């Protein structure tokens, strides 16, 4: 299962990178978010142990999963939601200013 998980993380990451490298700026934004997904999965699998139940105290028998990565993922998701929204707004402004959605068309940057 580890191999498959790692494989999926790698594939999602590759898809994200590929999307970022596209000329369409909307695709680049999507790529950024795909990266976030891959990283969430990666963090999720770094838990010290695999538990038998969710991380709640005293509800049912069994040992709860490692709560620490989950807390970290929550933080990561919140921040990435904020930053990707901001990135979108930036892309939007840039595409308006240069009147294009093509990353290669942003000629003003070479000046």
């Amino acid at each position, binding site marked *: 299962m580890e191999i498959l998980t790692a494989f999926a993380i790698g594939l999602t990451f590759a898809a994200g990178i590929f999307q970022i490298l596209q000329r369409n700026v909307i695709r680049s934004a999507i790529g950024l978010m795909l990266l976030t997904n891959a990283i969430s999965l990666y963090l999720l699998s770094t838990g010290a142990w695999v538990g038998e139940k969710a991380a709640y105290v005293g509800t049912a028998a069994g040992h709860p999963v490692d709560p620490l990565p989950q807390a970290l993922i929550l933080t990561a998701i919140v921040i990435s939601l904020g930053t990707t929204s901001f990135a979108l707004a930036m892309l939007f402004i840039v595409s*308006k200013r240069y009147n294009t959605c093509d990353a290669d068309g942003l000629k003003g940057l070479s000046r």
Partner: protein
Amino acid sequence: MAVIDPYLFLPLAVVFAGAALAPAAKVVNREVSSVAMGWVLSLFPLAAFVLILDRLPGLAQGMAYTWSYPWFPGGRFSLYMDSLGAFFGLLVTLIGFLVVIYSGYYFGRDRGSWRFFAYILGFMGAMLGLVIAGDLITLFLFWEGTSILSFLLVAYHVSDPKARQGAFKALLITGGGGIALLLGALFIIHVTGDAGFTAILGSGDLLRQSQWYPVILGLVALGAFTKSAQFPFHIWLPDAMTAPTPASAYLHSATMVKAGIYLMARLNPVLGLTEAWFWLLTLAGTATMLTGAILALKRTDLKAVLAYSTICQLGILMMMIGQDMAISFKALVIGILAHALYKSALFLVAGMVDHEAGTRDLRRLGGLGRSMPLTFGVAGVAALSMAGLPPMFGFLAKETLLATAIHPSLPVYAAWGFTLASVTAGALMLAVSGRLVWDTFMGRPKDPGITAHDPPLGMVLAPALPALLSLFLGQFPGMKEEAVLLAGAAGAAFGSEVSVSLALWHGLNAPLVLSMVAVAGGVVIFIRRCQVMGLLDRLEFSRALDHGLDKGFDWTLLAVDRMAHRAAAVQQGRLRTYLIVILTGALGLVVVFNGFPPPLDISGLSGIAMTTATELALLRLVALFLVCGSAFACIALPGDFSAILAFGASGLGVAVLMVLEPATDVALVQIVVDVLLVMILVLALTRMPREKLAALRHLATRTSQSSRTRDALVAGAFGLVVMFMSLSALLSRPRTSELSPFFEAMTKPATGSSSIVGTILTDFRGLDTLFEIAVFGIAGVGIYTLIRFASAKHKDGAADTPGIPERMPLTSLGVGGSRKTPLLRVLSHIMLPLTLVMGICDILYGHDQTGDGFTAGVIISIGIGFQYMVFGYSETKSRMPWLKPSGLVGWGLVLALASGVGGLFVSGHYFSHADFGKLWGIPLPKGVHLSSSMLFEVAICLSVVGSVSLMLNTLGRPNR
């Protein structure tokens, strides 16, 4: 013998205080005249002079004063004053005192002269610090200080392009040398293990025998040669003559150019006495001496003549340091003193002539002696000293130089060359000084338009004093103290005893004969100067000497400039190319440092694999497939809208994996955030210029195969690296955790909650979450500001572009602008109240169960976003006038800060848990806790709703 002197910093502090006072005086009284300022500010160098003088008796007994102050860990700011330092320090402050008085008259009515005073006193401080620095790092600090302040002084007339160029050239050459010096100093420290001079001066053999000796010698010499204008680095000095004359007099005669001499003299006992040292310094010095002497004769600008004669003298001094005889160090100190005295006087005279006559061109000047008798007198005395004629102090300097030249300890052929060069230079210098005085003050006036008279007495005083000193120092050989100081300085530079007597006459001996030869030659050259100058002009060699090096320098600068342009051409402004370069570079680093494939320990692979039930494993497989399948679908689908949906599906797959973990809180957040992200993406898509997007879709199909392959290769390689990284992380992760057991054990007792993850977020790491929410809020406000204000300011049409009419529903995207169905309208009416209820429940029961303030906020935001999607911007606005996003963000953050206060009262710690319900005995439904963390959750929810509404509001606002 080193003695700690707690007040050694005083001279330095006094001078710097003067530098600080100059601007302050201008602030206090705008009308203060330059003359008054000069007189007042001259007291500061005078005080420093007296303070150094005060230490002479101790120095005469062979003591050295030290002082240090811990500056940074492992570093000291330290001072060290022995006879050599004091000798230079006295020169710096004495000439500085005179120059400051003189500057007052020189600038006269110039209202901006406080700037000059500040610079020159600052420079004086740096120069003084340089000669009494106690370790190499402190020395370097002051060394750079002199470079920078001299840059400011040379470029004082900023509107003059020549001044700027001269300053730039000086800074480039001396600054470059400064870097070499720093490297050399670091090597010295590496070898000796200590930066302090007291330690370094004791480890001469260590340094000379070190394998780094050639490197150290080269670097230190480079620093000293550039600073002291040695051939071929002398080219900056004539160009620096664009400085105001008092600065030229000070920097380029008495002080800054002597810094390199000081450095070499200081290090001579530890780096000197080797063959390399001898040849390097002797050859550089001889070349410099001859270059300076020849070019001095060719120049017609008074200051340029002085500059080249200074270069000549600097060459002589450098040559002296290269020798290993006591007499050459006697020549060194006498030469430094004599030169500082007569050259500063001559520079100041040149300034007065320029000031009064309005020109410095020797071809136009002449016959000024009658109208400027005082100036003439001063110039005459100084020039006699420069010519090396008795009874001036300069005579003694030349005698000792010639005595060194014929010293039997030199190799025969070297001695001949050496003697010849010295005599030639002596003759040329005599001719030059004769020319200086004659062409300026004697003969017939060449330009009838020039009317001049003596400047005020105070101004004449400045050059008169050093000129008189050069006259009298030679007359009183019995002046013990001076001789003792000079002997001490020479001894410190030589490394052992040097006896110095200031008697002019040593009887008829070989130096005197040589001197006569030089004088005779000089007189001949002087009388025949027109022919000699004509001859020099015709000589290819002298022309090359004149301009070749400057051309080389300019060419080098040009070449650097061209290379910079070439390098900048790589920056072609295509973001994707940058990204590929960055990514490939990162990949390269990973491969270089980890090798490929990375070492993996796969022994742990099987053990954990099947801890979950088989069916669940199957479900996990499906979810994994969903995640990557959707990610690839997202690439493959041609439409942007479908790509966004595919991305959403991938995110939901991640949520399923989280549920399987089981991580229910995270899964819930992942689901709602995924939905919200899709919503925001769709809204952003609607705001993009649609015709451009359509054009791009055609373009995407036409994107060249090679660039797609390149992208795919980079992405694939990166994915592979991440895969290996995840795998090795998964396999090698520690099976125990330091923190998690603590969280598990403490959750219930500390907060009464049973949700460990939620408690970590709101209580254990509450402050962290506070920052995180602040970031989120700022992102929302940032988007709002970016789109509403930044783009409006630049008029780039992001704020308002004619295009889609305002009433246009936003669902038009993907469905092509069709009207909303009644079902959709009804649904969206129900959505908002429903999400509100869900959000409230989430907050109320989130303490013990899945859900938290953030989830609640996002759920409510989805309800609001749905309104935007269905009803469009203006209708939503009119439907929900109560929604004030910015206020929500602000109040949310304030409430979040306030929620921590409860803990302050209950347990004394800000942000610690406080259960008010239990505290005040309020009856609450089961599972609801009225606690500080609940307040915090409410605050988070408010600011999330506010922030997301801001995003939706600005991204969803149609173009007008």
